[in-house]
């Protein structure tokens, strides 16, 4: 199993930007799987919108890169879409997972915790990684403003309370 050095790069984020706590590669029989933990932080405005029925959607992007002189070469890319919605009738939070599954939670924190723990069970073929080369594991989560209601979109691009995305976090992969 490859050991991962968890050393996130310096980032600049807004007050409510998500952060990637850690990410790691796990070796399985079919290859490598990625496990990461994301710290979502909802602004009061986002929380209010959620409770008023607005669906919030994030797209978690996981990339495996090979560092280059001028730019890194992307050798693996995976996007996982999570959305969060409040079910007013049942007074529960519904999380739509990227695996076409809905999970209902009685509390917001429970729903956020569920979304935070990302485990991409789709394996990365082991042949993509060479033991004698360095690699970077890059993760970010992007809040999708374009899936907000139309009147809210222009505001979401201008109001930092809607800046809920994270920047790229990278970790070097070492043996």
């Amino acid at each position, binding site marked *: 199993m490859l050991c991962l050095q968890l050393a996130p790069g310096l980032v600049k984020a807004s007050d409510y930007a998500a952060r990637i706590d850690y990410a790691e590669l796990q070796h399985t029989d079919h290859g490598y799987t990625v496990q990461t933990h994301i710290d979502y932080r909802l602004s009061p405005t986002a929380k209010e919108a959620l409770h*008023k029925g*607005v669906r919030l959607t994030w797209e978690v992007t996981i990339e495996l890169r090979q560092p280059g002189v001028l730019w890194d070469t992307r050798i693996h890319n995976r996007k996982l879409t999570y959305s969060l919605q409040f079910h*007013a009738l049942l007074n529960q939070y519904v999380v739509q997972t990227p695996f076409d599954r809905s999970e*209902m939670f009685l509390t917001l924190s429970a729903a956020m915790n569920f979304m935070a723990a990302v485990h991409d069970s789709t394996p990365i073929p082991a042949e993509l990684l060479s033991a004698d080369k360095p690699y970077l594991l890059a993760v970010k989560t992007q809040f999708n403003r374009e899936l907000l209601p*139309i*009147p809210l979109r*222009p505001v979401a691009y201008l109001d930092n309370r809607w800046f809920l995305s994270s920047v790229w976090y990278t970790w070097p992969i070492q043996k």
Partner: protein
Amino acid sequence: MAYSKIKLPASATIILLFGFVLLSLQLMSSATQESSELGEMYSWLLVINTLGSVILLGLVAFNAYSLVRELKKKEAGSRLTTRMVSLFVLLALAPAAIVFYFSVQFLHQGIDSWFNVEIDRAMDDALELSQSSLNQRMTWHIKQTKQMADQLRDKSEALIAMEVGSLWADSGALEIAVFSNQGRVLASSSVNPSDILPHLPDEQIWLLLRQNKEYFAFDPGDNDEMLVRIIVAIEADQSRFLQVLFPIPVRVTDLADSIEFAFIRYQEMNFLRDSLKTSFSLILLLVLLLSLLAAIWVAFISIRNIVAPVKELVKGTQAVADGDYQQQLPVMNQDDLGFLVESFNQMTRRIARSRDETRAAGLEVENQRAYLETILANLTAGVISFDAAFYIRTANQAAYRILHIPVSHFVGETLPTLATMHSELADVLNAIQSLLEKADDIWEQRIVFLGPNGRQELLCRGTPLFSQHGARTGAVVVFDDVTDLIQAQKNAAWGEVARRLAHEIKNPLTPIQLSAERLQHKLSKELQDGSAVFLQRGTRTIVQQVEAMKRMVDDFSEYARPSKKQVEKINLVDLIQEVMALYLPSGIIFSTAFASDRVLVEADPVSLRQVLHNLIKNAQEATTVPCRIEIKIAKVSRNNTDYVELGIYDNGNGLNAEQLETIFDPYVTSKAKGTGLGLAIVKKIVEEHGGVIWVDTSYNDGAGFLLQLPVFEFGNFK
């Protein structure tokens, strides 16, 4: 500039522009609809329209800046363009702003009208009613489940397995399952026989179950159905749990979903109320901006197109004002402005033609004037023209030759002013001035005056000039020096007199003389001594007087007869010195001032010697004191011909004014024995040699004569 680089016709550009604007706005308007597929493009459309507005704003700003620069440079048409653009902007902006203001007002009021307290309350109540209904069902199912748990309490796993089936059948549940606290399924029964495994709780439910010892919640089931999951502990020690899944009727589920959807939708709209207002206001603002800016830009293009002919006209007019009459402007359109441009072109063509004609006429006039000036300059008669105040306007070269002053240099002066500067001409100039002032018609008069070359006689003819309205505009005086002509006439007359005298008088003299001599010869012997002496004395007197009369008649004949010149080149200096040598014994004191010792003239030496003799004898006879004669030789040029000027000055009594007038006339003498032909013969010989002689009136110490002869060669100056 940017507008000048547009290749498309203005109308096509305008149509294209407005097409793009309308399409973009329509797309954005459609994108605001929730159901529209363009919703995903909303942000891009917003950015595109904003960019379009910025580009249009830039174009308008650039055009406005260009216009301001043109205004500062005061370029043609800039003021008209500014006025039209300002008017258009004002006319377009005012209604657009009003429409925008009221549209925003109506929009905000319309959005606000969607929401009110009653609807809020109704929506809350509806949701609460739904929740109550579901909760009531939930409560009933919890009670039912607990009763089933009571029935299974303290029973063995085998008994439980046997009773689960009957419980499921009695309860109407979808699924009943009994599992241990370890999650091991002890018994289950389901409506779907294919479900081998029951729907076991997940980690979250286990967590809650361990905390609360029971769990009940609505679960989303398969096929969009809703389930009630109830889990209660069978035993007090929570070693076994009973889970029952109850179905919610489809109708109830649909109604609840509908209420929930409406509630959520309403809540969302309420939450988005301000965003909606902002969003729609933004779209309205974009519509206004795009429309207005596009209209203003198009206005710039259109107005510039309209003003272009006017601009060309202004430039053309300025060019015409600067004297460029070749301006032909392009006729862009066959409208009123095109007609104006065509008229301008016709006008410039006519002006150019008139200018050419005027120029040709002026040239003709100039040629005529030059021709007249040439004629005037070559006239032997002097011509002086005067303006209405008798100031000299023009004078020809002959005037200078006759008056010996450069009259043309005195243009702008009057004759009296000229007279003060040249006192020797005061008489003639004042006389002409007097005649000019008095005469109302053509006048002619001979004016005699004593000029620098002696007595001169001018024949003057004056013509006053009048304008078409009869006002005096000036005068022209034409005068000619007739001194020589008069003198020639006199000489001819005297020659005729001499010839007649010689013929009429000399012929009888010989018989008279012979008769007297015959009387003397015949009678002297017959008469007594006294009478014979008397006769002899009488006949001698007759013979002597006849001889005297013969000599006198011979002199006349000599004067009247054309001379037979033997012309040869002689050195005038040598000739003068020869003649002077003859007179040295007589005591005359000569002084000479010769500019050269070699002055060759083509002349008859005998005649020229007689001239010198006559002049010297004349000076000798006019002098009582020791006679001093000064002889000067100089070179002068007159009418592009070189002359030798010979001056002979004595220290005698000089000549008075009366003598000056007739000094060269025959039979004019102040001496008792003189015939009066000496100076007349001198003048005759000089003129026969192409020269002139006159009394130097500027010499006041005696009499001075100046004669000029054409010189063949004038040696170097000493």
